[in-house]
């Protein structure tokens, strides 16, 4: 392969084929990505930690395995090429959100309080990708403790959107999305508590899958809100999202909330098309506040799906408006409890004090940023005596009403199709001082987490100023295959217009 730079924008499937054919080596692929990181990351700041030596060791191991498989095939011991789902990640470079523990590799969670934390173990999802032979390039930036919608809350500086460096990449998995969009990784992992995989995927023009709660292990995922958090992939194509999902999903005895059920053949399902599927459109997702460009891009994609044989049905989400206050009571409540462990005793930052209470309080004052403190305060308030029933318990009951809305909608619709965000990526600094405005960014995504459902964000067009627009497909629990099937049809039908040479300029030209 003469121009390795072209490979920086290829899919997992394309690269896997080249690796198996011996057209490129895993080492060449890793080196090309490490060079791209050197070239463009000073402008984007997707990475917090690059692990070049570890990546090159993993790539060398992948090359040995590839050679063994080819040898076995030529001597007749392997009768057919390996199945993609089993081995397609072998030698593929990826980026890991810094919320996932990596044995021996610094894991900061975007926070000063964990600036020097080196975990003694890896998250189950990381172990699974290591086992599949994927090559981890490094750890990528995020809003501190995954709290935010813009990656402006990282203690280590903002990440910029590769499509416009003055704009946010979305959050909290902004580094994960920016790295994939800028050719700095073939795929990445993010975590999604209220939209943190889907929103940055939409803002950076990549695919982002938030799986059903319980399908992907949370072991080694630094906890934010335990009943909402779920790890998911960010990729260039829908088929790639299916491949990574299949590699990381499945029951994990180390996570007591992991669903003990097998993962279906998701990749096989994605090409089945949308003929006969009922797409639910709920007017509550298309009301006031939605940008006209996004409304048009999403509805135009729906019309294409209709031409492919899908049927549009009306659905309703009468309690959708309440999802935002429900989320902003439940998530901070769980966060205030989860973040109680940061006390400067066993790991992380410590600020000394005259007694242990002063030490705890000062450590947390110095270690946490403003958004994290705000949510700890909000959660502690909502859980405190006298307010628990009025705020926390009330929110959990309304959560039930939202869950029932989805159940009702899925009686007539196979999936719901919605926008991902009410606006295109906003400018850095635009909403930092106004938490309520910032929280509105997640208005279309967070009800999916409250109900524990799968949702995918897939590119469906560009705004007039060439900013990516995402479309969200939501399905019933454990219907990853179905939501990806609809997303694949969106990708196929709008694909030609989207991929006609459009790439972020910074990713092609460098700074």
């Amino acid at each position, binding site marked *: 392969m003469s121009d390795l730079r072209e490979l920086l924008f290829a899919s997992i499937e394309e690269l896997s084929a080249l690796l198996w054919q011996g057209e490129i080596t895993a080492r060449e692929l890793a080196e090309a990505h490490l060079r791209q990181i050197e070239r463009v990351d000073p402008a984007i700041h997707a990475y917090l930690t690059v692990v070049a030596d570890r990546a090159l060791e993993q790539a060398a191991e992948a090359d040995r395995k590839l050679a063994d498989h080819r040898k076995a095939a030529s001597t007749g011991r392997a009768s057919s090429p390996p199945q993609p789902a089993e081995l397609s990640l072998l030698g593929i470079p990826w980026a890991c959100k810094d919320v996932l523990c990596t044995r021996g590799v610094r894991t900061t969670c975007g926070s000063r309080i964990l600036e020097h934390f080196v975990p003694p173990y890896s998250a189950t999802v990381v172990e699974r990708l290591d086992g599949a032979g994927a090559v981890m390039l490094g750890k990528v930036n995020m809003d501190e403790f995954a709290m935010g919608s813009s990656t402006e809350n990282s203690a280590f500086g903002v990440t910029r959107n590769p499509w416009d460096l003055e704009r946010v990449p979305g959050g909290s998995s902004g580094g994960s999305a920016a790295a994939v969009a800028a050719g700095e990784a073939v795929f990445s992992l993010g975590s999604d508590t209220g939209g943190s995989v889907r929103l940055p995927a939409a803002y950076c023009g990549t695919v982002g899958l938030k799986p059903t709660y319980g399908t992907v292990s949370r072991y080694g995922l630094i906890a934010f809100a335990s009943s909402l958090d779920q790890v998911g992939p960010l990729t260039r194509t829908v088929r790639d999202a299916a491949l990574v999902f299949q590699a990381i999903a499945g029951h994990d005895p180390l996570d007591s909330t992991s669903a003990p059920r097998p993962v279906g053949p998701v990749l096989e399902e994605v090409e089945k098309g949308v003929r006969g599927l009922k797409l639910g459109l709920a007017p509550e997702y298309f009301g006031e506040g939605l940008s006209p460009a996004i409304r048009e891009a999403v509805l135009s994609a729906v019309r294409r799906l209709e031409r492919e044989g899908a049927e549009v049905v009306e659905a309703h989400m009468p*309690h959708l408006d309440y999802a935002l*206050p429900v989320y*902003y009571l439940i998530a901070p409540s769980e966060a*205030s409890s989860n973040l*109680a462990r940061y006390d400067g005793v066993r790991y992380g*930052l410590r600020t*000394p004090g005259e007694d*242990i209470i002063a030490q705890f309080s000062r450590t947390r004052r110095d270690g946490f940023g403003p958004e994290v403190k705000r949510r700890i305060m909000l959660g502690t308030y909502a859980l405190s005596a006298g307010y628990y029933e009025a705020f926390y318990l009330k929110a959990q009951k309304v*959560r039930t009403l939202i869950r029932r809305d989805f159940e009702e909608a899925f009686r007539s619709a196979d999936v719901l199709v919605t926008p991902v965000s009410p606006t295109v990526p906003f400018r850095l600094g635009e909403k930092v001082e106004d938490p309520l405005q910032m929280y509105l960014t997640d208005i279309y995504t967070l009800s999916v987490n409250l109900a524990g459902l799968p949702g995918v964000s897939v590119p469906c067009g560009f705004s007039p100023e060439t900013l990516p627009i995402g479309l969200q497909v939501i399905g019933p*629990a454990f219907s990853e295959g179905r939501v990806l099937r609809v997303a694949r049809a969106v990708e196929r039908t709008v694909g030609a217009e989207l991929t006609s040479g459009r790439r972020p300029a910074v990713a092609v030209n460098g700074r």
Partner: protein
Amino acid sequence: MAAITPDEVRHVARLARLALGDEEVQRFAEQLDDILRAAARLQELNTEGVDPTFYPLPLHNVMRPDEVRPSLPREQVLHNAPDQENHMFKVPRIIEET
């Protein structure tokens, strides 16, 4: 709903073991007030007889066999500790002398 006062913010900060400066106390009083006023909309809804959803999927207790398994080596566990002594985490004295 009554406004959140700076004293309430200080009380919650004590519960959360979070030292705050005066400027932060003032800012959080205003912001928490805004957010909780927005959240008060939930009171419009009648939720009588509605069960809360603490987890989106049914949870059941997971027990493993009571077998001894290796744990992380002590050096690894202490590796990230800000302060340690005699293979233990070190904290300020918590027992007062009589």
